[in-house]
């Protein structure tokens, strides 16, 4: 069957970089951040495009974020998405992931779909909740940490990764939501002509009114949520760090391995 697939993607600060906390201690400093597409979302997009190529259908990418996220959406189009929608939800910090997930759920509801894919987690805040909140809000069956997707007729099966290398295979009635694990596929690079073409493609913007709300505040739930403070991690200082250049550190490493009895050559 031809599939209408929605992929929810997020643009995150590259977590490999260093971060500074703002003077108020309420957020990281965002003036000079380098943003990129969340890793697991790249796999989710690739899986969606492969399903479309095999079974026919349409892939729509959706994000909730400021204008800068349009670049990520254009990349997704260049990699095979048919349409891109930006939910104009401009909270750069967005620590309340439940609230963003409810906004995404409202947007997903307004787009015809058989399958919704998200990454298993975003590498900035590592909540692992967005996909499943969307699923349960819309009443769709779901499976998380998915490492394989198979569609046979209208029956969808998914491999879920458990701990210790074990997996379980589950049947997921559609419409369904899957959260996609790293390594499920090898995401493609966008060909240059596709990048050129995507640069000209319009990106649809979704406002609260489009999903029947007066403002995004309508998606705050019946609880209060507040960031109390951000701090650098307490250094346990366990590691004895060796200084010096390569030659010095190599001598120290060799000495350490001998002293501890790990090398008896």
């Amino acid at each position: 069957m031809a599939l209408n697939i929605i992929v929810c993607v997020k643009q995150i600060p590259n977590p490999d970089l260093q971060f500074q906390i703002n003077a108020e201690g309420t957020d990281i400093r965002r003036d000079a951040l380098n943003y990129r597409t969340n890793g697991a979302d790249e796999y989710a997009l690739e899986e969606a495009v492969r399903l479309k190529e095999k079974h026919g259908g349409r892939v729509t990418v959706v994000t909730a974020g400021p204008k800068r996220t349009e670049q990520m959406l254009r990349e997704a189009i260049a990699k095979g998405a048919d349409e891109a929608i930006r939910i104009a939800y401009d909270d750069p910090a967005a620590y309340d992931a439940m609230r963003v997930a409810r906004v995404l759920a409202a947007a997903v509801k307004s787009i015809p779909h058989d399958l919704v894919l998200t990454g298993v987690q975003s590498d900035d805040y590592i909540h692992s909740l967005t996909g499943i909140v969307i699923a349960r809000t819309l009443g769709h069956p779901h499976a998380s940490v998915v490492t394989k997707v198979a569609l046979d007729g209208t029956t969808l099966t998914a491999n879920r990764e458990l701990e210790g290398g074990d997996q379980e295979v589950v049947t997921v009635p559609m419409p369904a939501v899957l959260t996609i694990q790293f390594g499920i596929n090898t995401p493609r690079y966008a060909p240059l002509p596709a990048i050129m073409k995507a640069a000209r493609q319009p990106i649809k913007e979704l406002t609260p009114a489009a999903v029947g709300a007066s403002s995004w505040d309508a998606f705050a739930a019946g609880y209060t949520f507040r960031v109390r403070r951000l701090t650098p991690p307490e250094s346990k200082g366990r590691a004895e760090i060796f200084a010096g250049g390569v030659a010095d550190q190599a001598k120290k490493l060799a000495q350490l391995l001998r002293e501890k009895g790990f090398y008896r050559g």
Partner: protein
Amino acid sequence: MAGDILVVAEHRDGKLAGATFELVALGRSLARQSGGTVKVALLGHGAAIAPRLAEYADVLAVDDPHLEHYSPGGYEQALHAIVESVSPRAILLLHSSQGFDLAPALAVAFDAPLVTNCVALVFDGPVLVATRKILNDKVVVEIEVSSERPYLATVRPAAVKAAEPLPSSATVTHMHVSIDPAKLGATFLRAEKPEVQDIDIATADIVVSAGRGIKEKKNLALVEEFAKLLGGVVGASRPLTDMEWLPKTRQVGQSGKTVRPKLYIACGISGAMQHVSGMKDAGTIIAINTDPSAPIFEVAHYGFTVNVLELLPAAMKELRSG
């Protein structure tokens, strides 16, 4: 009663996830603050693990054929009945594959606030204060949530110490809940175990693991040579097995193997939580990473901060020249 803390036990193939006892420990400390006790929800079919759990806390057990395998809908139905019956102040689950799948669904179903992947939880009066580590563990954030509804939280494995058993066993209460098989959501088809044809890194005395810091697949040869010189085996962090530079059987961490060798050397591994949980109990841990702020140095005993691709050949030369 209203101050009780409910812990959702995680188990598979008749075995409890060890980190369930960490939830019990955290549940005890929260219950002291909220004026209640810890209760453990055990959902399954024919599992004989209730007495073992009762050594640690009161157990509320639901046994039903439709709970033989985990399903989000089956667990939600059983937990709905338990929550109706005990009205807990907070519900704790593991930040695990099952926790990812279940906790967010419960939050929607119970209209409850959820904080995931917590490393600490305390009550400040009626407010729940959750501590989380974000951005590759480089920033710690404290979140306050306040609600009349029960709080839901998932807790990162190995963040707190496991509970000690009680002086004498607590009670096991069997609850009868009829599970509607039409509302299981995704349903279990079969289990798949990894095929073991490769060496078992879990039994080695020395494991030398490679991460993204080795840059290119061809540099694995260097790590292999170093491991061989020490009589050890080569492990890997997740990105390397995802790229298929090494088979999945070599992956150290939460979704791979847990290893406790006498010596663990992390070569170009940043030390994400998923990796660290699989190697933190090694006897001696040596980390090599050019980023001195990498979280791997939090668990390592010794740290080297030069390029691993230059350090290993130089160290081998030193060792061989004896």
